[in-house]
């Protein structure tokens, strides 16, 4: 690539063991991966191959047993909790595979939560932005519903909106369309691609949906803890 867009994320030779004693499993066996701004990546593979485990590492929610992770040019795998937390807040938007929302809070409050921590916007602007984000995932009507009053798919879409709240340069989404019908999964996917193109964000998503995967810029199939 001649005008290769800048690198948002790079990991090299990531190893991760999980479990204790006899149950200890070598889950990631030296995974290397790069994500550039403006690109959408799909990580696909059978259940249990280590996709979520990798995403947690890339999202700085977990620490690797070997290898390194660079976020926007800074090596984060060795940095302390505070630095990793700050990087999560400013650069990474994460959509979990399960349990998406804080259920005692409204959709709007959930989306505002990362903004309030970052505190870059005035409260009124935060609210306006949260409204707009919820609108873009088709939930403009349900901004004041509590998490408990939303369906699984609706919760998932709020979680996507929340991951976008701080305009992170990297969006990590663990099956963001898993619970969605065709129409909504199309909408969420379109939103993510549009962001990648318009704002130069790197989007990495795990998906079991071949159709979605096909529409990504890059597909990385994974098997048994390694990219194949």
């Amino acid at each position: 690539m001649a005008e290769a867009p800048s690198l948002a994320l790079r990991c090299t030779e990531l190893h991760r063991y999980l479990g204790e004693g006899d149950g200890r499993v070598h889950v990631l066996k030296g995974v290397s991966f790069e994500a550039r701004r403006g690109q959408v990546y799909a990580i696909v593979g059978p259940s249990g191959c280590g996709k979520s485990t990798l995403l947690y590492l890339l999202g700085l929610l977990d620490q690797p047993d070997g290898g390194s992770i660079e976020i926007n040019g800074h090596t984060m795998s060795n940095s302390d909790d505070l630095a990793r937390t700050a990087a999560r807040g400013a650069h990474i938007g994460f959509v979990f595979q399960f349990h998406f929302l804080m259920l005692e809070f409204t959709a709007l409050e959930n989306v505002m939560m990362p903004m309030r921590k970052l505190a870059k916007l005035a409260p009124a602007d935060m609210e306006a932005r949260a409204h707009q984000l919820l609108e873009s995932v088709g939930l403009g009507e349900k901004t004041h519903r509590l998490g408990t009053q939303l369906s699984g798919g609706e919760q998932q879409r709020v979680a996507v909106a929340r991951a976008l709240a701080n305009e992170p340069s990297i969006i990590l989404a663990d099956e963001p369309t898993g619970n969605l019908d065709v129409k909504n999964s199309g909408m969420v996917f379109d939103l993510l691609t549009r962001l990648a193109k318009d704002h130069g964000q790197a989007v990495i998503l795990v998906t079991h949906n071949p159709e979605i995967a096909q529409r990504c810029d890059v597909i990385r199939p994974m098997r048994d803890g390694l990219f194949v």
Partner: protein
Amino acid sequence: MSPNFHIAYRFLTAKKRAMLMSLSCTVLGVGLFILTQATTSGFEEFFIKTILGTDGAIRIEDKFQDTLRVMSASAGTDFEVSQRDGVKYIEGVEEPKALIKELKNFSNVIAAAPVLRGSVQIRSSFKNETAQIFGIEIDEQLRVSDLGKQVIGGSGALARFRENEAGAIVGRVLADRLQLEVGNSIQVVIGSELTRLRVTTIFETGVQDIDKVRLYVHMSQARSILKKPTGVSFVQVSVFDRDRAPQTAAHIQWVLHHHAVAWQVREKTWLETFYALKLSSAITVSIFTLIAGLAMFNTLAMIVLEKTKDIAILRSMGYERSDITRIFLWQAVIVLLVGAVVGCLVGAGTTYAVSHLPLHLTGIFKTDTFQVYWSPWHYLAAVTTAAIMVMIASLFPARRAARFEPGDIVRGTAQ
């Protein structure tokens, strides 16, 4: 509203029952603390008022000749030894008039009155009792004591005493034992001497030890009965600031060379009893605040367990460990603040209610209702104790919540 506080509030109100549990423990702890302190201090205060109104704030007794010898251990060192047994006491106050005149110069002194005291036998038509007669100058005595309020029958009863040269004001219990009534005559026996007096008045302090042995007579009578033409046993002093009585006494002792005892020293035994009572009730009641702490611990530990996923979400969004700690400490603070305010109101309310409960006591003092003492310090102490207990107890779950690794939570392996 800070996001941490907002989150704390929602977490807490999502667990209403557990929250109400720790809230009511806090209210109970604070309220009971205040109530017990108000009543124990109330009785202490009442006792102090009684004894100050009876025996005054300072009693000036024996004159001493200050012959303190100061020995230098050896030249070159500043080691000095004072010998206490260098002091020579002369019993009583030889020149009360001069002493009282001097006492006027002490800024804390309101008034001073001479008292001549002696042990006698009292004989009524009914039986004999040992008693103490107190020779007083009635007008001066009224300025250093509450005798005017302690006499039964008020000013009329005092007037009868004033008019009768051989009058006696007899303690209530002593009068009962001798089956005396106003107007009866008694005989004061000392050795083989016999003096006839008339009971003009009866007084009651409520302090058993006083009411069963004491009778007041005119100074001139006492002098003739006790055969003391000059001098008195002690001078009773009333002061403006009772808390400074020990300093004033020390000052008097230093300047006037008479042994001066403040009420705090004189009534040490009783005061220490009250202190121990106050302390032990504070400790007992602190158990309730301890329970409030445990309840808070329990509530928070439960919320931490239920909200681990939310903690992971928050951490994934950039919330720091310290934010998580604060979220849980805020919950404790909310419960504590509400508990403190309600607890203070409950404490004040029950104190007020209890102060109207009838309670008939005599012995170390006489009262018809529960005695309470209103002091902001009780409220401060109650809230402080609860705050310490609750905050310490909350620190553990709060820190535990902050220690979680978000990765462990999302995988479900956090413990």
